[in-house]
């Protein structure tokens, strides 16, 4: 990890107008994402974590603030080159792959859109991408329906790699998968990060996963970032009560974990009522 931030969020906000009401989904968030790190953004529904991701990806225009990639400000309307620079892996691979297009067609799209590689070589690239996520190259002629959930997610990851972007937003990439599959996908993500020097923004509500994959953690509550720290500090000595209650709510399978939860205090009566 070098000192230069790859992505900088500067006082970013997002306000949605519903009828006459204004809903502040993201409230003045400033955040640096370092090159090569895995930054987890955790929070529950309504925390604004997904909205932040969508602003970073340029799906939503922000209502205020600025975003810098490599020190250069990203415009609200992203050009094709900006799009290429930040990629996404979605939660549900069943929906994120077009059921009517083959795996190969889905993987070729980013190559064709951005003119990556010689036209004649693109099928070779598709095969290489599949191999990189440990799928046989002949899967390119298959339809997503013929793949298991884990295999589909591998294809979705390969598609994100195809753009050769440095920054990948992972939006709950394993929460629709079974645990055995989840473990394999997480391993793959780690391996790719190492090999390609990727930077991840990992959006999730699953703190057990965060503990084992992230370098730093940003905790979001109701549109605000309430805590930011290294994974060690967040899990050994969380300072914000919301972080503590999040950790305390994680269902665990071993006594050591239970001991950690107990030590980090249970939610207070007040917090119980608020939920």
């Amino acid at each position, binding site marked *: 990890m070098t000192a230069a931030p790859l992505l900088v969020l500067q006082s970013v906000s997002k306000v949605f107008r519903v009828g006459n009401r204004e809903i502040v989904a993201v409230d003045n968030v400033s955040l640096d994402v370092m090159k090569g790190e895995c930054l987890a953004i955790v929070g529950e529904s309504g925390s604004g974590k997904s909205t932040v991701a969508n602003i970073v*990806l340029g*799906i939503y225009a922000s209502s205020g603030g600025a975003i810098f990639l490599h020190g250069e400000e990203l415009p609200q309307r*992203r050009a*094709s080159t900006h*799009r*290429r620079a*930040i*990629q*996404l892996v*979605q*939660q*549900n691979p069943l*929906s*994120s*792959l*077009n*059921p*009517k*297009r083959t795996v190969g067609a*889905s993987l070729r*799209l*980013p190559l064709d*859109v*951005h003119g990556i590689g010689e036209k004649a070589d693109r099928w070779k690239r598709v095969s290489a991408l599949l191999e990189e996520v440990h799928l046989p190259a002949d899967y390119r002629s298959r339809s997503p329906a013929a793949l298991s959930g884990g295999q589909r997610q591998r294809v*979705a990851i390969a*598609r994100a790699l195809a*753009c050769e972007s440095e920054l990948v937003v992972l939006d709950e990439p394993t929460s629709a998968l079974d645990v055995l599959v989840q473990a394999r996908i997480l391993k793959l993500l780690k391996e790719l990060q190492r090999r390609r020097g990727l930077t991840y923004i990992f959006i999730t509500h699953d703190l057990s996963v965060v503990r084992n994959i992230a370098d730093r953690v940003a905790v979001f509550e109701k549109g605000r970032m309430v805590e930011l720290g290294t994974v060690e500090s967040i899990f050994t000595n969380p300072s914000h009560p919301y972080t503590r209650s999040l950790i305390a709510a994680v269902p665990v399978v071993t006594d050591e974990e239970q001991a950690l939860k107990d030590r980090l205090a249970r939610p207070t009566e007040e917090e119980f009522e608020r939920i």
Partner: protein
Amino acid sequence: MKRTLAILVSNPLSALGVILVAAVVFSAIFADFLVPFPSHRGAVVDFANFNQPPSWQNLFGTDLVGRDLFSRVIFAYRISLVLGVVVLTIAVPVGVTVGLVAGYLGGWTETVLMRITDVFLSIPPLVLAMSMMGLLEPTLTNGMLAVTAMWWPWYTRLVYNIARSEKEEGYVLAAEVIGASRLHVIFREILPNCVPAVLTKMTLDLGFVILIASSLSFLGLGVQPPTPDLGSMVADGAKYLPDSWWLTVFPGLAILVAVFGFNLLGDALREILGVEQ
């Protein structure tokens, strides 16, 4: 393929649909070789045999100028099918494109396109076709034009609704994040997911186009004599009911068989392609 066969075998009505449609299409294509009197499709007169009831020689009897009704019914199928195919080849691409664009782009485009569609949908189809035919010459071409004008909005509605829900799917977001063009998203991502529903509707509609074209010619606004047409045959024969019953009953049955067949096939297709209703 195996599934398709299994559905057809397990559901006799679906199988019947396939058989009826196959029979109609086959006889329309090979009419020249199948019918006993191919020349009777045109302006032939045989006063020696006029207005004869069904016999072995003339299965459906003969008409008022002595032409073999069976031969004419089969040739009428050809006209009806051609009409149906032409109408759908124009109406479907237009309707589908408008629906896709409105559904995906949303905003002003959607409002304008869908209001125009609603205007067309609010006019009863037969009235629209009749007024168009009243303004224009009642020829086969104009008949097709009239039917087409009232047909496309249904495809717009259908595809618009599918596109609006598909737009929320992750694969559309994925294509947008990659930076794919709107054209790509509309025609390469969303359109393929509309195909099963459109195909099913087209099959059902072939039956209805035949029906509506027959209604127009029944009213004297469609295909003109001497070209054989089921609707005008029923209309002409109706004056001679009940004595010369064959003049109306057989063309009427022919319409029924075609419409029924395409409906059953459409339902079968819906099941095979897994289209939600």
